[in-house]
Structure formats: structure tokens, C-alpha cells
């Protein structure tokens, strides 16, 4: 399986997935930490992939989305953005609107 197929499987197999550096409990980068904080505030269930544990995905995810940085958030198979866009959308209430519209599962 190519790295693109592996990423595609993860993205399509999870309603909400964050590709990040480190884990939700121990983010290894301020931007990933910010992304986790936003998802926790939304109280939404999400999967996460630690790209530091998988160099193939770390490189491949940037080609997959044509986006140069990590973290990257995907909802229902679609790339939403990195932590800056997540923050802008969160502050504008747009993320909550997506959670409601897509009927995303709650955390816990």
C-alpha cells in the first residue's frame, strides 16, 4: 500500500482526524497543542495520528493535502486546515456549526 493510500484510509475511516506532532496528551509542538485545545473545547470525538512516529506519513501528508505544515485537520474526509484556520473558524463559530451540521460524535 502506498503512503497516499494509507493516509486516504485514515482520513476516510474517521469522521474527525488530526495529523499532529505528539499525542493529544503530550503535544510536541505549540501549533498541535492549539489544535488539540480547540477540539477539546468543541467536545468532539477525534482520532489523531502522531507524524513523529511515522516518517512516511509525516512527509506524505503534505503532498496529500498540498499543505506545507502540521497539524492538519480532516472532517468527513475533507481537509479543513491547520491550527490558524481552526482558530479563525472556532472564533467565528464555524467549527461548531460543522460539528452540528455533520452530527459529529461527542468526546468521551
Amino acid at each position: 500500500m502506498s503512503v497516499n493510500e494509507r493516509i486516504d484510509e485514515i482520513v476516510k475511516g474517521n469522521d474527525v482526524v488530526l495529523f499532529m506532532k505528539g499525542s493529544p496528551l503530550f503535544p510536541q509542538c505549540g501549533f498541535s497543542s492549539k489544535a488539540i485545545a480547540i477540539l477539546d473545547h468543541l467536545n468532539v470525538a477525534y482520532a489523531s495520528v502522531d507524524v513523529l512516529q511515522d516518517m512516511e506519513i509525516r512527509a506524505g501528508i503534505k503532498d496529500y493535502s498540498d499543505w506545507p505544515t502540521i497539524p492538519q485537520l480532516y472532517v468527513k474526509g475533507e481537509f479543513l486546515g491547520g491550527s490558524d484556520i481552526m482558530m479563525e473558524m472556532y472564533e467565528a463559530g464555524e467549527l461548531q456549526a460543522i460539528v452540528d451540521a455533520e452530527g459529529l460524535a461527542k468526546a468521551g
Partner: protein
Amino acid sequence: MAMHAHEIEEMIQAALPDAFVEITDLAGDGNHYAARVVSESFRGMPRVKQHKAVYDALGGRMGGVLHALQLTTAIP
């Protein structure tokens, strides 16, 4: 390895000539920046496309030599 604030500003300005660009050195270490870019060309573009336009202006440096750029885009 780090980039200077004026380099970042010039590259964005070159790609988006109408843009208002404001760079803040967040940590004073020449390595963690915030950029606010306001451009009429963003009108009608989803946020991902707006940010992508700025990343493209930086020609592959984003995620490489430029690790930390907290980006905000807006329409005037």
C-alpha cells in the same frame, strides 16, 4: 536558517502586491512569527485557499526554514 521579518514581508508583498502585510516577531528569536495579511485578492476564496496563497508566496519555505508562522488572513 531563520528568516528575517522583512524577507517574509517582501516575499508576500511580491506575490500579493495589493496586500497589507504585518509581521510580528513573537519570541524575539527570528524564528517564531505572526503574519497578518489583508488582501482584496482573498475575496471569494475559502480560508484554506487564502492561507495557501500566502504559503505559495513563501515558495516552499513554510514548513521548512520557516517553522512557526502564525497566519491570519483577511479581506479589507
